[in-house]
């Protein structure tokens, strides 16, 4: 095995990862703030008022990135969980555990802002549309993952049990994504499409992408902060933690 791969594997150890995560966190916070300010400025002052939806549509600048993040974070959580199950690395389980609350937050935020958008546009806080329902299921899956991990005292067993649950739940992600095609209901089809030009103003798209980047950076910063706390808690019996805390 060559030198560079060994270098990467070194960060799989909580002891090596703890300080480097600490050094990365301020950068991610700074990036989150920069993207957030730029994104909010575009979404509130630059993006034009929508012809049909008026000013109310501006909530999508929070709603869409939150929905994306809630799905991405589940995949990331399942990725770490699967890695932990396959390679039996300690840090992977901790990462999965650290990502889950942020994912749940994003799912809740997505549902909440969706309700705020739905009231003026559809005249209802909630409709039983496929995408809304799948997002709600995703939220439940996050809650189930966190509840299962919290219920098991032995952290190693909690990691592995949670990993299996996360991988089973990953089946839900394609259902969310394709639900728009499966059930043809109230929710409008997705406006951003990789194959054809987006049917929205370019400034709106930029605002949304900047906000999505802001949410990414925020999620990474928070997850790293949380994983540092989890590392300290689980490795509290070791010497290096005693030195690190001092």
């Amino acid at each position, binding site marked *: 095995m060559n030198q560079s791969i060994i270098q990467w594997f070194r960060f799989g150890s909580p002891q090596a990862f703890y300080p480097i995560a600490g050094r990365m966190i301020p950068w991610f916070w700074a990036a989150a703030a920069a993207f957030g300010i730029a994104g909010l400025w575009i979404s509130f002052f630059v993006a034009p008022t929508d012809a049909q939806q008026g000013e109310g549509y501006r909530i999508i600048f929070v709603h869409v990135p939150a929905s994306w993040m809630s799905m991405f974070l589940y995949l990331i959580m399942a990725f770490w969980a699967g890695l932990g*199950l396959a390679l039996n690395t300690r840090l992977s389980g901790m990462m999965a555990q650290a990502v889950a609350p942020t994912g749940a937050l994003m799912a809740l935020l997505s549902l909440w802002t969706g309700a705020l958008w739905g009231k003026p546009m559809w005249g209802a806080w909630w409709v039983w549309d496929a995408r809304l*329902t799948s997002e709600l*299921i995703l939220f*439940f*899956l996050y*809650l*189930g993952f966190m*509840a*299962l991990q919290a*219920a*098991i*005292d032995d952290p190693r*067993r909690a990691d*592995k*049990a949670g990993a*299996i*649950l996360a*991988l*089973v*739940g990953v089946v*839900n992600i394609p*259902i969310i994504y394709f639900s728009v095609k499966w059930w043809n209901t109230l929710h409008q089809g997705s406006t951003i499409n990789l194959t054809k030009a987006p049917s929205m103003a370019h400034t709106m798209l930029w605002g949304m992408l900047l906000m999505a980047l802001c949410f990414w950076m925020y999620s990474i910063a928070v997850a790293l902060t949380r994983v540092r706390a989890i590392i300290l808690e689980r490795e509290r019996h070791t010497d290096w933690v005693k030195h690190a805390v001092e």
Partner: protein
Amino acid sequence: MNAFFATVRRDLLLALRRKSEVLTAVFFFVIVTSLFPLGIGPEPVLLKKIAPGILWVAALLATLLGLPRLFAADHVDGTLEQMALSPSSLGLLVAGKILAHWLLCGLPLVLLAPVLGLQFDLDAPALGILTLALLLGTPLLSLIGAIGAALTLGVRGGGVLLALLVLPLYIPALIFGAGAVEAHIAGLGAGGHLSLLAAMLALAVFFAPWATTAALRIALE
């Protein structure tokens, strides 16, 4: 394959020696479905409309009621460890246990559903679709539930946690199962819904025993 059938036979035998446990879940199903008309009112049009959903939700909850028993007793008396150590694969034995669980908890619901459907004024073809949907759906519920039962084995507050883990995963089965009957009543044909239900069942038959086995090994560590 012998080990598979031996496990099915053993679990059926154990359940038949103690019939009350199995019958409780069945009576739960009957009582819950009978409560809805009392709460909602006896209008036939409304009852006919909500019948598939009610029967499906009741079947979901009745299946859930039987799930903690799937592995708990074998875990407590050490049988499960013996199964894990036995020369035949644990996955096969687990599949046998799941099949036995479906025969005890799922099949009675399928057989009872047409009778209960009559209470809701469903006509004969709709009853047929309902039974067919449950026949495809209840094994799916047992298979998915087994993963949850294995994950929560010996965990604090296991029963409530099991519901939290398993019920969200049951939602697609509920949507397509109840949707099949509704589509039939609406004159759209139930073929698509039943096909999707069968596809999910095929997927679960392949993956669920495997995931359950992995979860059991973690619980036995």
